[in-house]
């Protein structure tokens, strides 16, 4: 180090966001410190023991394609793999896996430990010393720890999860803390407020954990993994894993009666929690009170690992008092004699209002300060890890004086998520949904590598061999599509046949094989096509089935990118644009977008505002 810095990048936190951020920064050559309260908690799953799901699985594939580790850890620690939405189109199919919680933790910790240039520092970050940068802006100078140590660095990534100002609740009990049995980061929250950053408050919760031997499985419906299981990582060839089952049960009127009788003791309903919780992951209290007409809710019993006694009952997250939790779980079929190992609780925590973020996950006002994960108002391991990767990349690039990596909405779910966050302060913890991605048909889990690995290669997070693999895959898919267009059967191309809703890729290959065994050109095609990897088959199917729509989406992408390419000069006078709507004017003045595309996506800016802006820009250009 040159004496003014101990590290290039300091990452505060070692959860899903922190681990990816630290690994990415170090791999890009930055001397990186990862400050954690508990070094054993790297990559710990605080909530359910699963990774992926619809839209979240897309994110995990993107993390993998861009050089992150979440997918590889999931493949190593997964104990049940399922592809979701297989009856819908290829764009909305997504992988999900149950993981062995302890194993996932070890896998991620091992990667962090083995990573060159990455130093794990045990301690509590309490302050961010800030100085003046070369220009007028303030700049972060590093991180001060509770024991007085100071880690000097030009770039800091905050990934504080539920720990920032964290407070735990169950019934009438409450205490400071970031996770069951772990203290929170109160001083840091104070320090951020001291910097003038605006914070909001979110809430989330977990269910009680059950002892697996106290469950009566005979009464439950079994949910098996896929055979064969499909891996998450594009780098995992084949999964050799003995899968375990999950089990389904349901709440009933008796459960709901218990909840309703004690709802007033829930800290949410007693008004002691002010943070906003996610509607898509409601507590059992919420489900019962908000949907009083429903007489049953699904509960998935998910094993937390091969050797673990704990079972995670997905669907009954609650912060009711422990004795009420005991009463309510025993009303559920299969759980009549269940033993609770840990009680459920709610956690409330601080997050940065996201209009303070930039598209590279830089905190707008403080040069060198980045943020990722729940501190940016999101929820979910996958959302956190994806942002961690981008923040880590950009922190390293910032420390080296390189321009940031910004992913746009047409490139990835990652780009959609970050753009969404920059535009609007999420009113509830932000979760990824496929419906948020307007270019959904282009952003498939199966083509994440085709979309993002070239970018990873360019920035230095991917080796030449891997990039060449992706290029070869691209070529194989292109060739297969061309073949299906060219080969005709009964006067129609195979592509036309495949476009029929009920026909799958495998049907087409089967038809070829029967008609022309082995020798003629079609036979050769058949064996080539049959040899494609599952990812590639899905891609060929998507390219053909969506052909017309894909062309349309590409046109929309071109328009988007043209708007993004229309730069707005930094000195442009938004106040002088006549006729803007009130809200649009306010947003433009507050945000000062740098491109017409960015202006278009600001909440409150109407299409009419954009037209007026274009006219004003045209005038400004012609005057210049």
């Amino acid at each position, binding site marked *: 180090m040159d004496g003014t810095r101990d590290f290039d990048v300091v990452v505060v936190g070692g959860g899903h966001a922190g681990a990816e951020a630290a690994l990415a920064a170090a791999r890009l050559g930055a001397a990186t410190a990862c400050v954690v309260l508990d070094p054993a908690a790297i990559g710990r799953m605080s909530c359910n023991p699963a990774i992926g799901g619809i839209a979240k699985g897309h994110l995990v594939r993107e993390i993998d394609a861009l050089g992150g580790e979440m997918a590889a850890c999931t493949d190593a620690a997964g104990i049940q793999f399922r592809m979701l939405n297989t009856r819908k189109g290829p764009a909305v199919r997504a992988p999900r896996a149950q993981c062995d919680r302890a194993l996932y933790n070890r896998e991620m910790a091992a990667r962090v430990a083995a990573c060159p240039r990455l130093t794990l520092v045990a301690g509590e970050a309490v302050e961010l010393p800030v100085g003046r940068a070369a220009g007028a802006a303030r700049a972060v100078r590093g991180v001060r720890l509770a024991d007085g140590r100071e880690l000097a660095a030009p770039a800091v990534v905050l990934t504080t999860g539920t720990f920032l100002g964290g407070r735990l609740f169950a019934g009438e009990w409450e205490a400071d803390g970031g996770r069951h049995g772990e203290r929170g980061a109160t001083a840091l929250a104070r320090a951020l407020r001291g910097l003038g950053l605006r914070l909001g408050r979110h809430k989330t919760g977990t269910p009680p954990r059950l002892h697996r031997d106290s469950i009566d499985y005979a009464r439950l419906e079994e949910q098996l993994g896929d055979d064969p299981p499909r891996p998450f990582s594009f780098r995992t060839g084949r999964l050799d894993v003995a899968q375990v089952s999950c089990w389904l049960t349901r709440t009933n009127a008796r459960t709901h009666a218990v909840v309703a009788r004690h709802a007033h003791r829930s800290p949410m309903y007693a008004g002691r929690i002010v943070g906003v919780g996610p509607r898509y992951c409601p507590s059992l209290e919420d489900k019962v009170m908000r949907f009083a007409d429903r007489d049953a809710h699904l509960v998935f019993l998910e094993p937390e690992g091969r050797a673990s006694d704990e079972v995670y009952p997905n669907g009954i997250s609650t912060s009711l008092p422990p004795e009420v939790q005991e009463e309510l779980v025993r009303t559920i079929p299969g759980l009549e004699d269940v033993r609770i190992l840990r009680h459920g609780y709610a956690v409330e925590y601080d997050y940065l209002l996201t209009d303070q973020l930039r598209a590279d996950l830089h905190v707008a006002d403080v040069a060198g300060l980045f943020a990722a994960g729940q501190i940016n108002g999101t929820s979910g391991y996958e959302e956190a890890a994806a942002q961690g990767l981008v923040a880590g990349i950009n922190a390293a690039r910032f420390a080296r004086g390189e321009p940031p990596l910004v992913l746009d909405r047409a490139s990835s779910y990652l780009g959609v998520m970050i753009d969404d966050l920059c535009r609007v302060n999420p009113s509830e913890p932000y979760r990824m949904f496929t419906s948020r991605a307007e270019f959904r048909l282009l952003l498939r889990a199966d083509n994440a590598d085709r979309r993002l690995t070239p970018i990873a290669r360019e920035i230095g997070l991917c080796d030449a061999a891997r990039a060449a693999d992706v290029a070869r895959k691209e070529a194989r898919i292109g060739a297969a599509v061309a073949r299906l267009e060219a080969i005709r059967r009964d006067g129609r191309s195979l592509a036309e046949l495949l476009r029929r809703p009920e026909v799958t890729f495998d049907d087409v290959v089967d038809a070829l094989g029967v008609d022309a065994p082995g020798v003629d050109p079609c036979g050769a095609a058949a064996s080539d096509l049959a040899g494609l990897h599952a990812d590639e088959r899905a891609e060929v199917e998507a390219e053909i089935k969506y052909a017309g729509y894909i062309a349309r989406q590409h046109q929309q992408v071109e328009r988007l990118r043209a708007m993004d390419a229309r730069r707005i000069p930094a000195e442009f006078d938004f106040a002088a644009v006549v006729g803007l709507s*009130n809200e649009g004017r306010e947003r433009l003045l507050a945000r000062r977008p740098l491109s017409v595309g960015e202006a278009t996506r600001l909440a409150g800016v109407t299409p009419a505002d954009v037209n007026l802006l274009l006219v004003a820009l045209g005038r400004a250009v012609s005057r210049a």
Partner: protein
Amino acid sequence: MRDDTIWAQATAPGESERAVVRVSGPDAFAVVGAQLDGAVPARRAAVDVRLRIGAHGLPVLLLTMPGPRSFTGEDVAELHVPGSPRLVQRIGMALEASGARPAAPGEFVRRAWEHGRLDLAEVEAVFALIHAESAADASRALRTLRGDVGAELDACRAALLDARALLEAGLDFEAGETGEVDPAAWRGLLERARDRLGALAVQLPRGRRGGGVLLWGAANAGKSSLCNALAGRPAMLVSDRHGTTRDVVGVEVGDGVVLFDAPGDLVDPDAAVDRAALAQRRELGALCAGALWVLDPTVEAAHAPPGVGAPALLAVVATHADLAPLAPLPAAAAGLPVFRVGSPSGLGIPALRAFLARFAGAGGAPGHAEAGRGESIVGAARAAVEAALAGARTGAPPEALALELGDAIDRLDGLRARSVPEELLERIFGRFCLGK
């Protein structure tokens, strides 16, 4: 927010019984107050006041409308005075001496829009109304301004969002979480939205070219086949059964002409669904620029002329010309241009298309040139909904249908600006108890 106050004569220039002088802006009440002996009420009111003009002052009526509940959203005062150009000029000079300035053309409307009192569709309607060349144009513009169209657009948009929420819930969540969503639920929403958008398209202020043309005729006269032939695509479901078409459906056939294929005179006048369809046809007829009388000369019963409520007949179209090229036409058809067409062969279709293009080019429905945007946007939104329905029929994947719906909603949002994804999620979460 603007800080200046503007004034203008709100009635037509020239001598008249009464003239209205309108003042709008933050100082509107102070500026007007400076011309009066009495005080200006700070509430919404109509009061008799005395203008300081002449020896004894001039009694006039003053209307006060404090913002934001006024046309412009600012404080607005109106003086109702005798309609003398000299007097209005003098009042104007006095207002300007007190700090007001003359309004630029369209400035009141622009301020109304800036303050969210009018949306773009309504702004267009104001201009269409000002420039209306016919009673029909004026009534269309008025309907927009009165909010009928806005409310209807909102309702259509809400239906589209609901339909999309049902579709999206099935994509973003596993069936275990949402329960199975019956496709009939969103399909029904879409069909109704499509029909309402079709009817709306003709109610909006019009561009100079084109307009709605109603196909009028007995059930099974071949209206839907004709529609498809003119559109060059299978836009309508066709069958040999009487009364296959129950919904009023608009199909763009080029040159700004939208054909409305209304149901024929159905067999069962007592069935509620048939009665509703016919009522809709009458309503639509009133809005269309003209009608084509479609008849099948091989069927005698078809020879009754269109009944009361049909718009002006432009021409007679005799179908099934492949089968009966020379079949006699009913006496009522005399004097109208006649086109004999055969649907499968396309016989006579080019001639009819050229006729419709001439009709459109001649200004089928006159109106202000810039005021046609609403109509084409609604038409395009409707086409996107139709594409989604067609996709649903042929088994296109739901994510593709969602794309069409997104397109339709985006188009309507161009007309009435708003943001979608959060609203969409709102609807999903309102309906389903989601999340494990």
